[in-house]
């Protein structure tokens, strides 16, 4: 299946793009996609524990299963205000 990854802020700069398309095996979870990206971009490692995951606009945990065409948002720690 294909998943669209939408990284924000620091994560977007690390991966170098506001949108990535990634192939993932059926049954892959949000955490699996994150781990794949962290292999590609080792600088993501230090953000693993603090990044929030968003599937199709709703917060999920890393065990959440993804489906073909899902969008996975990657939100690093906030800095508003």
């Amino acid at each position, binding site marked *: 299946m294909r998943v669209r990854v939408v990284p*924000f802020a620091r994560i977007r700069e690390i991966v170098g793009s506001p949108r990535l398309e990634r192939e993932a095996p059926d049954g892959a979870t949000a955490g699996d996609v994150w781990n794949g990206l962290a292999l590609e971009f080792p600088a993501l490692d230090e953000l693993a524990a603090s990044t929030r995951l968003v599937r199709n606009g709703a917060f999920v945990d890393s065990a959440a299963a993804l489906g073909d065409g899902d969008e996975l948002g990657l*939100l*690093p720690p*906030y800095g*508003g205000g």
Partner: protein
Amino acid sequence: MFCDIVDEPLELEPLIRAVRTGAMGGLVTFVGYVRDRSDDDRPVDGLSYEAHRELALEALRAVGAEAETRFGPARVAIVHRIGELGLGEAAVAIAVAAAHRAAAFDACEYAIDELKRRVPIWKKERYVDGESRWRENAG
């Protein structure tokens, strides 16, 4: 309640108008401005803010709704600006009206504290020397 994420300079007056009613005897405002020094004392040139707009609005509304009931009835307006901000420009403005001042002060402090913790907005400090750095809120 009035919450928004905007790309233009902030004005406090519309927020005050949005929360004032005849029943509200106290009104507290908070405005967060771009400072000319970072927390570690580097000269700052400006800030860049970005948001996950949909989730940020959702979180702002949740924070606003809590602030309106938690300390007694209050009316809350919160607007955060995103994009490129220069020194001295306002990044966030909050207005809270309540029957008496204690609830208004408490609700206003709650609103800014929870905004910093829960609303998906990001800030990059741009320094006078040309470097820049993402800054995260504590907790």
